[in-house]
């Protein structure tokens, strides 16, 4: 009887996991699971946004002044890069859901490329901060004309963009996994959840940056 039950369980398409009744149920569960995971990410980043809100109100002048030391061109460029990568990701998800196998890998690869460009720019920015002694800690030098609490701004800058960058790296890893599976022909009109779920993750990371950019790079420009 046990064997019969197991045999029953292995009927159905190969992508169907045995504990789900059918592919639609599996897809519904996977989707809810990924959205619930993104909820945790909202609260995860949210803790740092809370710290940012409190300290920005307490140290307005320091934050505005320190923010102006960030390179707005690189920040804006990176914002554009990420938005474009969200488009290519959305197009990859669309290709997968239409069963358009030829287009999945190119769009995924473009997304990865743009993500890497973003990270490259961040490396450049971080290197600049090291040069200018704007990295908090023992080597920090208060920038000329700014209050000492500008160090707090840079602490939050590094923590928030650093965590964001870590999420980008993980995202690129997930995309690599997707490319491998896409090349194997795993995805079709009937089964493309992994692409869609990684897409949700990628768009979320983009949304985080959509908030990080104005809060970190733009808050003091009006004082210039």
């Amino acid at each position, binding site marked *: 009887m046990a064997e019969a039950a197991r045999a029953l369980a292995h009927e159905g398409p190969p992508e169907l996991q045995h504990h789900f009744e059918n592919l639609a149920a599996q897809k519904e569960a996977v989707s809810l699971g990924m959205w619930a995971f993104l909820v945790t*990410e909202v609260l995860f980043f949210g803790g740092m946004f809370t*710290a940012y809100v409190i300290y920005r109100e307490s140290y307005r002048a320091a934050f505005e002044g320190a923010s102006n030391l960030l390179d707005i061109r690189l920040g804006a460029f990176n914002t554009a890069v990420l938005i474009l990568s969200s488009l290519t990701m959305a197009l990859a998800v669309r290709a997968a859901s239409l069963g358009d196998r030829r287009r999945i890998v190119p769009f995924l690869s473009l997304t990865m490329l743009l993500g890497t460009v973003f990270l490259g720019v961040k490396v450049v920015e971080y290197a600049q901060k090291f040069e200018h002694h704007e990295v908090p800690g023992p080597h920090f030098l208060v920038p000329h004309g700014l209050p000492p609490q500008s160090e*707090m701004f840079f602490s939050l800058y590094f923590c928030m963009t650093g965590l964001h960058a870590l999420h980008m790296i993980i995202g690129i890893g997930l995309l690599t996994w997707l490319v491998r599976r896409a090349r194997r022909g795993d995805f079709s009109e009937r089964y493309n959840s992994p692409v869609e779920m990684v897409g949700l993750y990628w768009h979320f990371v983009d949304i985080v940056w959509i908030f990080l950019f104005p809060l970190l790079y733009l808050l003091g420009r009006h004082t210039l």
Partner: protein
Amino acid sequence: MSTPAVSPPGAARAHRVNYLNERYGVASWLLTVDHKRIAILYLIGVTFFFAIGGIYASLIRLELLTPAGDVFQSETYNKLFTGHGVMMIFFFMIPGIPGVLGNFLVPLMIGAKDVAFPRLNLLSWYLFAIGGLTALWAVVHGGVDTGWTFYTPYSTVYSNSWVVVTAVGIFIAGFSSILTGLNFLVTIHTMRAPGMSWMRMPLFCWGMYATAIIQILGTPVIAITLLLVAAERLFHLGIFDPAQGGDPVLFQHLFWFYSHPAVYIMVLPALAVISELVTAFARKPIYGYKFIAGSSVAIAVLSFLVWGHHMFVSGQSVYAGLVFSVLSFMVAIPSAIKVFNWTATLYKGSVSYQTPMLYALGFIGLFTLGGLTGLFLAAIGIDVHVTDTYFVVAHFHYIMVGGTIMGYLGGLHYWWPKISGKLYPEYWSRVSAWVIFLGFNLTFFPQFILGYLGMPRRYHAYPEEFQVLNVFSTAGASILGVGYLIPLVYFFWSMRYGKDAADNPWGATGLEWQTASPPPTENFAETPVVTGKPYDYATVAEAALG
């Protein structure tokens, strides 16, 4: 209530294939994706960490036998209560009931084959184990002395102990908690058997669902907070350090935003167990099903609005304190609703006093006491007087130990026949239940008095006039320790020598009792179809017994 789905009738019980004997070998356990085996893995893990936390407790009570700080130095004593708190909270209480009973029962109770994400479930266990071992590494290498609350800037700047390693261990275990909550949330939403509407779902599942909501929304905040503490310690960032413009109170806001709801992660599952026990041992449908289900969700939501009651004396705004105080009174209401409904269930019920029921009754009394003292603490005027005293310690131990642990043990006893296919010895189980109840009260009731008289917590020395009560407390702790050891012995004993259990030894309602004890790996031979109300004791045939 449903079409019974049991293992083949002809097969001899001893040779029936079930989830325990279907496969042997360490790899079949460490690589399992069966929720029932993962529950057993959690059982082993949490018992281990409970033992470590218990050793810490013994050392604390040993020191507190005498007024002078003569057994340990103060720095060592700080490490003792920190280790006790960290081990018990993060590696026993939070993973405990969800990991053991939740994992085992939720799919069975809703008629599913497994949870929504079985591999993620296994990952959850590994994260729990790795997190625990990481914290254990810190313990072995000298421990942490900041208190489980990690207040800054002591934890980030001045402490000379393994703060970062412990924080990392808790962070990893937090991920485990998130994934477990996520799994249960999705499972309950999407995998209920045909006919099992939300209002037919067992109250245990409602409790696990509410717990999952808290795990998902709250845990990430402690995760980022601990990450920031570690970053501050490693890179001298100063986010919470006043010397660099940081605010320690901000740390407390972020810390308690999770840690208050966390206590409900610890108690909601136990409340859920009690609902099951009360109805089963009164042999009556639970009174006020909708109120109990709704109160679980209400607790989950309200629990996020009260964290400032841990911060009344922190320098927090008086007005924020007022709001937190009012909300803290309100959060007691859903808990009280449960107690009223359980009482109404017992009224005119056919009550039997087997061991699970003893634990349930003990829970109701002790949780009520603990909850009422919580109201004392919610009143700012009283709190200012008793904050950081043994009154607070007694309050939360009444809820956590008198409440949650007794709920856990009650549930473990109730479902042990299902989990192991064996019966535990009823005589010794009643003995240990009484030993635990008496030992617990002797340990912690004196602490209410001590706290009110002014004995501070987290001190290894105290004024002479407090010694008598402290001696009572330590005596009680010894008795309590013995009480916990007895079940450990007879549960092991029962696996070898215990009587075989029937599929439904209690004659209870619920899908988990409609399948074999222990269940087959796939839980049910055919997916059950649910047609009746939950807890329908009037209609359930007595043929369900035996």
